């Protein structure tokens, strides 16, 4: 089946169907989120960390759903389209971040049984100065992440249903903010379970239907004839992109409170398994969505905007039903990631800034209230920052890679080596970020995380060797 080259200008979903889907899933998420939020003891720990006792199914699903972002469904096909097989591999390698974090997660759970955030760890382990550097990095990354999700929402709804870019954005951010605000982490984890099943199940369905219409032998033949370089497994730039992606994801997972909050929320016995299972299962998603990019390439589709590729191609292959399926998949991906970002970032700001920095005498009820206000504030801030539309999500994403990769070694060293030096941790984060950003501007975006992590590793190791400290692990129990 040949896809029309003049696509994407016309919406593929009738506005009535699109609105019906938006209303159905918005009401479902809000109702379930509010209902689950009413469970539990109602204290700050329950609101921020879902009672610290979630099992393997919910823990794995929430990791999957949070890591399957709007980028995974919109950007992974773009990677396949632009870079071929290596583009798909490189995106899939981002799952390594979750798998490699598994032993660290177990260690965090053991060392910090009362911990709430990644900021707690950095402050107790390396002191307030390192905490400031860390907070600047994590704030920049989180805002970039929130913006890519919000922009993805606007772009998706516009591509599929003809909604105005800003209207789609307001709907997705609004729904995520409402159920996170009322239900806290319980709402996030509970809805994530259903969202992850929806995403994975519907992706399988879309893939099977698409491959029946456009079989792999036909795809292979077209690629060999027209774009053989996309099938080249010995692509030097591909290797570079792949390892940059793996290090970028390690930086994202190792430092960000989305993943730390999942560690604190989960039962100790399931922490390790959930990160391994979640990471391995996640790796299949960009390979499946990336294949759609190859299909578009094989058909020489003329795309007005390359990050619309997945919804556009699925709609062309499968008609209105395909558009509806993709709409649900991406709507679930966006809301599941946005709710996680909102909840975990609100935890970080409320616990680390409002409570530990500004008002240490705050009561439990006040902390809970502060967390809710931060959720609301973050939702509004995301809306404001994403109002002007950027053409490529990749430009936003790679920029933050330079920053987060610099935190990998300070976090890993700090969890295992009592000798890790606090001055070295600060220098590692600052120098790694600076070199990574320079590489982003002067060399290429996909070198940023690689160089940032390498410089940070050297600075951390040398600084610690020169001036080793003697850290008492019991200090972390306070967190």
């Amino acid at each position, binding site marked *: 089946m040949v896809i029309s080259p003049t696509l994407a200008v016309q919406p593929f979903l009738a506005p009535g169907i699109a609105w019906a889907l938006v209303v159905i899933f918005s009401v479902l998420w809000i109702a379930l989120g509010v209902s689950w939020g009413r*469970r539990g003891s109602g204290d700050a720990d329950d609101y921020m960390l*879902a*009672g610290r*006792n*979630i*099992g*393997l*199914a*919910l823990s*794995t*699903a929430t990791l*999957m759903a949070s890591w399957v972002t709007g980028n995974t469904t919109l950007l992974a096909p773009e990677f396949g389209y632009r870079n071929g*097989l290596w583009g*798909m591999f490189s995106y899939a390698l981002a799952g390594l971040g979750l798998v490699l974090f598994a032993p660290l997660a177990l260690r965090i759970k053991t060392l910090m049984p009362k911990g709430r955030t990644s900021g707690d760890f950095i402050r107790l382990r390396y002191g307030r100065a390192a905490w400031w550097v860390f907070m600047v990095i994590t704030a920049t990354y989180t805002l970039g992440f929130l913006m890519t999700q919000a922009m993805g929402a606007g772009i998706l709804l516009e591509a599929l249903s003809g909604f105005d870019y800003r209207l789609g954005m307001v709907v997705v951010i609004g729904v995520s903010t409402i159920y996170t605000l009322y239900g806290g982490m*319980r709402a996030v984890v509970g809805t994530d*379970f259903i969202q*992850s*099943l929806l995403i*994975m*199940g519907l*992706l*399988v369905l879309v*893939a*099977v239907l698409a*491959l029946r219409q456009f079989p*792999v*032998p036909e*795809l*292979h033949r077209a690629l*060999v004839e027209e774009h*053989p370089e996309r*099938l*080249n*497994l*010995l692509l*030097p730039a591909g290797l570079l992109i792949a390892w940059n992606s793996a290090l970028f994801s390690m930086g994202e997972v190792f430092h960000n409170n989305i993943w730390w909050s999942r560690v604190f929320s989960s039962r100790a016995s399931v922490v390790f398994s959930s990160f391994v*299972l979640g990471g*391995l*299962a996640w*790796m*299949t*998603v960009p*390979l*499946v969505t990336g*294949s759609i990019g190859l299909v578009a390439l094989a058909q020489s589709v003329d795309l007005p905007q390359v990050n619309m590729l997945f919804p556009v191609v699925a709609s062309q292959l499968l008609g209105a039903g395909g558009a509806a399926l993709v709409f649900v998949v991406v709507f679930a991906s966006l809301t599941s990631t946005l709710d996680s970002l909102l909840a975990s970032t609100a935890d970080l700001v409320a616990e680390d800034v409002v409570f530990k920095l500004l008002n240490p005498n705050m009561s439990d009820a006040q902390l809970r209230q502060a967390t809710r206000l931060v959720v609301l504030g973050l939702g509004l801030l995301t809306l404001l920052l994403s109002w002007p539309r950027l053409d490529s999500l990749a430009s936003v994403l790679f920029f933050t890679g330079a920053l987060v990769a610099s935190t990998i070694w300070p976090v890993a060293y700090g969890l295992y080596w009592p000798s890790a030096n606090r001055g070295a941790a600060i220098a590692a984060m600052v120098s790694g970020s600076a070199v990574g950003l320079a590489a982003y501007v002067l060399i290429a975006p996909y070198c940023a995380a690689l160089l940032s992590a390498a410089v940070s590793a050297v600075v951390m190791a040398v600084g610690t060797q020169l001036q080793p400290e003697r850290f008492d692990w019991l200090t972390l129990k306070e967190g």
Partner: protein
Amino acid sequence: MARFRMTTRWALTLAALAVLLPVAKAGEASAPPRWLADLPLLQVLIYGSVAGLALSVLILLLIWWKEWRRGDVW
């Protein structure tokens, strides 16, 4: 003695250049490495990832069902 050391260093540098320059030039002229994925490999990749995703859904549902029966979900 110092002069001897300088001369030796220059001689070693020139010898190294004499060996390495032709190798570098030969590398420059040769085509970039190429290994195209064949059809069976592409099939394994695409069908394998779809099967892996389907299996993940089943495993997740199975774990949830077992935990739900034990009252261990939350």
